[in-house]
């Protein structure tokens, strides 16, 4: 538990600094707005209006999201595995390889299906 005390302190300092910056700039900064200032600053291209009702959007975004979440869930199990690796012995390695191979099959399939190409 005590391992987390430095992290908590760091989080508190970060939070305090962010709050301080926000409050300080609100109190101290001059407020003269013009058109350029009220636009999003350095945030890529200007947003274009969406069609009414949303319209269709390319399904490949969905696929990317699914790939992301599946591999994210896979990665999370590597964490306790890595921590206990020394205590596990060879069978731990075998289990993890089996686990990864199953997801690797999914990866092979996605790759052959062109799921990794953006077109």
């Amino acid at each position, binding site marked *: 538990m005590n*391992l987390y005390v430095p992290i908590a302190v760091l989080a508190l300092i970060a939070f305090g600094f962010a709050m301080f910056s926000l409050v300080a700039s609100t109190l101290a900064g001059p407020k003269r707005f013009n058109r350029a200032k009220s636009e999003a600053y350095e945030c890529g291209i200007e947003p274009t209006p969406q069609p009414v009702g949303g319209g269709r959007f390319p*399904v490949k975004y969905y696929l990317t999201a699914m790939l992301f979440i599946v591999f994210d869930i896979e990665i999370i199990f590597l964490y306790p595995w890595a*921590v*206990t690796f*020394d*205590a*596990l*012995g*060879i*069978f*731990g390695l075998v289990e993890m390889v089996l686990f990864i191979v*199953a997801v690797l*099959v*999914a990866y*092979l*399939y996605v*790759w*052959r*299906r062109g799921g990794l190409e953006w077109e």
Partner: protein
Amino acid sequence: MNSQLLAQSAVQAPHIEYGQLAPMLIVFGLAIAGVLVEAFVPRRARSAVHAPLTLVGLAAAFVATVLQAGTHHVAAEGAVGVDGPTLFIQGTIIALAFVSSLLIAERRPDTSAFVSDAASVPGTQEERESLVAGDVQTEVYPLTMFAVGGMLLFPAANDLLTMFVALEVLSLPLYVLCGLARRRRLLSQEAAVKYFLLGAFSSAFFLYGIAMVYGFAGSIRLSEIALAVSHSGGNETLLLLGLALLGMGLLFKLGAVPFHSWKPDVYQGAPTPITALMGSCTVVAAFGALLRVLYVGFGGMQWDWRPFMWGIAILTMVIGAIVAITQADVKRMLAYSSIAHAGFVLTGVIASSSQGLSSTLFYLVAYGFTTVGAFAIVTLVRDAAGEANHLSRWAGLGRRSPLVAGIFAFFLLAFAGIPLTSGFTGKFAVFAAAVAGGATPLVIVGVLSSAVAAFFYVRVIVVMFFSDPNPDGPTVAAPSLLTGAAVAVGVAVTLVLGVLPQPALDLAANAAAGLFVR
């Protein structure tokens, strides 16, 4: 952290009984092999590789199950119970999956039930192109095998965590499969979305139930829950709420009233071979899991759950039978019939005795094969737009193709429980067990709803045989070897279990004699 690790002694390697897990391992292996086939075999050749692979693999899994007969053991570090009832249920699931796979493997371009290209939007040029090219989405095979593997693990799971993982493994592929019908794709996709949303809710209930039961018992192993239940005094609120939530998750999968509302829509929208798979294998697996949870984990508190199960069984039988009368679509009618039958099986579950268990097992086999056979017939009655599912289209079918209509009538009579069919033997067995278990009022309700149900089964027979054929009515496609085999197996099992039920009854009684392993 480091000091903790150094203090931690080496972890023992888990002991896995591969032989006892063989049926599941074979089916999951088939699923992975199927995915690799999808990845590396050219499109045209895939069906030809998948179909034999699936059928041979399922046959091997069945043999592996039979070889385990007599085992009574908790395997895989306590995750899986291998015992008589479980092996019986697993064998039933594999056999039913085999027959359903015959329907799934039906690949003539005009009669395949599966979409040509699931990712194309219905009604677009892309869809027409892929239809003309004669494509079929062959991922159906590995997805089916994943679902079947989950179904094998579901009734065998000896702890609630494994059971939940199995529930997800069996549900997720089914959600996808429901949306892959070749014709009436919007209906099919709607069915998939409904099934997915409601199924996700029921899974969440199940998970919440696990948390509550864990809070009570301090363990999710069924045997330790049983121990905690038998030693409990004092506050049982957590336990009762937990069991109620678990029950909701399980009863949803069987489609017991009031958790049945998905069933007609999903059965109607899904491709008919998948409906056959869900109507047989999923129901068997869900009953297996329910039996294990109630008999092993919560057997010590049956006076708490029995009144609720009474209520659910009565509601399920009555509502299933009554609402089925108003249905005008064959698949919806069979869905409500399946709801009513779930109620009949529940009367056997409620008996909570070895006799109740064996009669439930027998009923599941009898019902499963009749269901697969009936849906196989549904795939045969077709018109230009695909399957003709509306009952009015079936008018006069008995005069055009007496054989097909006669076989369907035979299945309907089996559903109704007419003597000399498996349905009669099954109903007799569960009702006898329920009477022996002191649930006579339940049996009276059961017999009355059987009578109501018989009304709508006979009505379909009357429509088929005693009304004039529609001039532009549907034609009966000549069954291919695969569909024909599925129908033949359905007829044979329904007939044999009706005329000569004793060997199967003995087998079920033997399997149930040792009850579930703890």
